[in-house]
Structure formats: structure tokens, C-alpha cells
């Protein structure tokens, strides 16, 4: 029985969720992203690491369809099982995808939240966008999610601008996950936080990702974050992917000169 389930699981995972092929983006003569190809499977966490200016944020924007590519394409397997090229999606379809099957966690929570409306409304809004209309159910689900991200439910009617940085980030995560997306993009999600707050957030993210079997593409310059959260890593430099592989393999046995430099630059704890 256990074996059978595992096999079914593998069959399902044998189809990639998102595929990038020869993705490129140039601004005039400057190439921000060159010839990036990879496949992401359900439940898989991929970290994109590199310094500022390496092209990792541009790549995230391309993958999430927020920026049009100069070359190559991204395809995504929709909930109905049909694989679509993101460039062929209409604006309404793309936005619907963003509200349902995708999440996007920004480094600055103010970009992903509405700072002046209540925490409950921030979470409930995404549910309403997918057709929920029963106020009591929306509020219950919102409270559930606040609890899951360790926010005191007594704060449900407060606006996030009254929250601390760590709470805001956890609220942004709740807002993203409430519609049970299959893929979440994260841009330096622990970037602006104190170290102790970071550890708590990482721990929370790690357990949510495993529990919900989420696929995640996370951009980070912090190799410790990549090690803790990701299965696979892509190292970027000058717009190119220079090394890729299993996270612990790339970090413990880096091959490329630049990756060796990155790994050796970590200060010992």
C-alpha cells in the first residue's frame, strides 16, 4: 500500500510543473539574463543564488510572467493538466493564475500586502477573488491561516502597518498560501529581517512548504537560506546559470570558481 502510494506520487511528479527554455532578457545591449533552461517539479524547492546584478531577480520576473522575455519561453502545467506557454495567456488568465495557483512573496511585505486594511481582509481578499462569498467562512479561514503563521488571532482586525516586520512577512505568506497555490515565487523573503526573526520565518516556511507539497522558486543571496529551504540550486553570474545541482552537492562540493568564491565567503557561525 505504502509503496503503491509512493509510486503514484512519483508518476504525478514525473511531469514538470514549470519549464523554462532558453530564457533571455536584454535591455538594449545589456543582457540581464542569458539562455536559462530548467524544469521544476511539483513539491520541488529551487533556489536561485548570486550577487546583486547577477540577473536572479530578472529571472524571477521572467518566470512569473511579470516581464516579457526577449527570447525563449516559459510553460506551466495548469490545474486542469494542460501545459500552456505563459506568453500566450491573456492578461485576465495570467492574473487569475496569480490569484489562485501561484503566490509571490516579496522582500518588502508592503509590496505584497495592502497596508491600510485589516490583516483578516488581506487574507480574505484572495479568497473572495476566487469566488468565496460567505463572510463567516472567509473569516474562519483567515483566522486559521493567521494561527498557522503564528499571528495572534486577536490582531485580525488590525492593519499590517501596526505589525512588526516579521509579522508582516508572515501575514504576506498567509495571504499567498490561503488559496492553496501549487507554485510560490519568493524574492529574498528573509532579506530585511533581524537574524532571530529570520530563523523563525525560515522554520515556518520549511514546514509549510513540506506540509503543502509546494513548489517554490526562491531568489536569495544568502546561501544559508538556500541550504535550509531548497532541494536544488542554480548559481547565477552575469545573467547566466554557471552551476546547478542538488543544493548540498553544490554547496559542499562547488565546481565553478565563482561558486567556490561564494561558498568560501560565508563567515563561520
Amino acid at each position, binding site marked *: 500500500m505504502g509503496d503503491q502510494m509512493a509510486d503514484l506520487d512519483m508518476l504525478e*511528479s514525473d511531469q514538470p510543473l514549470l519549464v523554462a527554455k532558453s530564457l533571455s532578457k536584454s535591455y538594449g545591449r545589456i543582457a540581464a539574463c542569458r539562455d536559462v533552461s530548467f524544469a521544476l517539479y511539483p513539491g520541488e524547492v529551487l533556489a536561485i543564488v548570486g550577487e546583486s546584478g547577477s540577473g536572479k531577480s530578472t529571472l524571477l520576473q521572467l518566470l512569473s510572467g511579470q516581464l516579457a522575455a526577449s527570447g525563449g519561453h516559459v510553460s506551466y502545467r495548469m490545474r486542469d493538466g494542460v501545459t500552456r506557454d505563459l506568453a500566450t495567456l491573456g492578461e485576465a488568465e495570467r492574473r487569475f493564475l496569480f490569484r489562485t495557483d501561484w503566490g509571490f512573496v516579496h522582500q518588502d511585505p508592503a509590496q505584497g500586502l495592502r497596508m491600510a486594511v485589516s490583516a483578516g481582509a488581506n487574507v480574505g481578499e484572495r479568497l473572495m477573488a476566487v469566488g468565496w462569498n460567505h463572510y463567516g467562512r472567509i473569516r474562519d479561514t483567515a483566522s486559521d491561516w493567521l494561527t498557522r503563521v503564528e499571528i495572534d488571532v486577536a490582531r485580525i482586525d488590525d492593519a499590517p502597518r501596526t505589525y512588526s516586520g516579521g509579522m508582516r512577512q508572515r501575514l504576506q505568506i498567509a495571504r499567498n498560501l490561503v488559496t492553496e497555490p501549487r507554485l510560490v515565487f519568493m524574492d529574498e523573503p528573509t532579506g530585511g529581517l533581524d537574524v532571530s526573526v529570520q530563523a*523563525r520565518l525560515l*522554520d515556518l516556511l*520549511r514546514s509549510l512548504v513540506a506540509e503543502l507539497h509546494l513548489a517554490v522558486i526562491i531568489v536569495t543571496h544568502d546561501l544559508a537560506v538556500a541550504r535550509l529551504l531548497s*532541494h536544488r540550486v542554480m548559481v547565477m553570474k552575469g545573467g547566466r546559470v554557471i552551476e546547478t545541482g542538488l543544493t548540498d*552537492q553544490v554547496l559542499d562540493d562547488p*565546481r565553478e*570558481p565563482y561558486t*567556490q568564491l561564494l561558498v568560501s565567503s560565508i563567515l563561520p557561525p
Partner: protein
Amino acid sequence: MIDVADAQKTFTMHLQGGIELPVVRGVTFHVDPGECVVLSGPSGAGKSSILKMIFGNYRCDSGRIGIRHRGALIDLATAEPRQVLNVRRSTIGYVSQFLRAVPRVPTIDVVAEPLIAGGMSRTDAQARAGSLLHRLNIPARLWQLPPATFSGGEQQRVNIARGFISDLPILILDEPTASLDAANRAVVVELIAEKKRQGVAMVAIVHDDEIRHLIADRIVDVTSFAAAA
């Protein structure tokens, strides 16, 4: 269960002017079910590197790391990252010397995690974790605390419990008894004997001669694989 053939590993240190550091070459040995093979040789001979190659943590330059996984043979030297992860989920466990735990997770959950990931209910997994921690003399009052605050020996025992809890057919043991007292070393020897009876294939590094005699069915001397010119 494990069939390593002609595996080779060299580090190229780009930050040191591209100096080549040969680690091992021609590594060839196998491990059968229910058998514990101990790697021997002086420090620096490449024992730990070989363990890491078998776990897919270090890449091989050439050769084969054959692993029997779900009834089929898979070569970890050429496997895709997803396949390596699958092998680690259901075939190979690694007990390292040091615990790398997430800061806030209670000890009992650190130990139970591999079972929960394998689909066991939280309650059952915690019950098994508890009995293993008990055997390894970690008092119950510590189970709800994260292991980060524990002593080195306690952390290692938590790590051993985490490594031995699941029913994986292959275990890699990297000095599992290094900082343990005599009583706890004896518990680890017992745990290894139980794994053998269950047919688990094990590869180990142990520096303690007495423990080596107690657990080794065969000894593979890695000196012959030394790649240093």
C-alpha cells in the same frame, strides 16, 4: 546493495590558482544486505569523501556508485538531483558526526521527522522517537527542547536517533560513536546489530578499535585508493 566501481574524485581549488587535489581513485567495493563494512586508513586517506560520494553529497569525476533502490540498480554518479533525493528518501540514511538542525524544532520532532516524511502519523512517529531517545539516555524532560542547547554528546545521540529511526535499507555511519561515553557506545553497537538482523547494509568509519571489532563484518582499507601522486 552498494556496488562502487572505479570511482574517482579530485578537487580543483580555483581560489588557490586552480591547484588539483586528488582525493581517491579506483574506489571499488560492495556491501551486501545485513553487512557492515568499515572503511579503514589514516586520516586524510579519503574515507569521509567516499561516504559522501555514496550519499551523492560529493560528485564523482568518473566511475560508478551503484545503489539498489526500490528493486532496481541506480548509478548515483550520474543520477539527476531528483533521483538522488528519492534515493535519500527511501533508501540511504546518513548519520553524520554533527547535527544540523533547524533552530526552533523540539528534539522529539527532529528525531521523528524522517518517519513523518515517510507518511507515518505524528503520534506513532513521536512514540518511536521517544523510545529511541530513551534507549540513548536522553531524558524525557529534554524532548521538547531544541537540541541546539545540548552538549556535544547529547546532540550526537539525537543525531543517531534520527539516523536509526527509519527503516531504510542502507545506512552510512560517519563516526557514530566519536563523542560518546562507554554506556552509549554500547547502545549504538546494539542498534547496529539490530539493523544487521533486519538486513540493512551499512558502511561506516569508526576510529575506536574496540567498536570496529564489534561492528565490522569486513574491513576495506582505503589506502589502496589513495590518489595522491
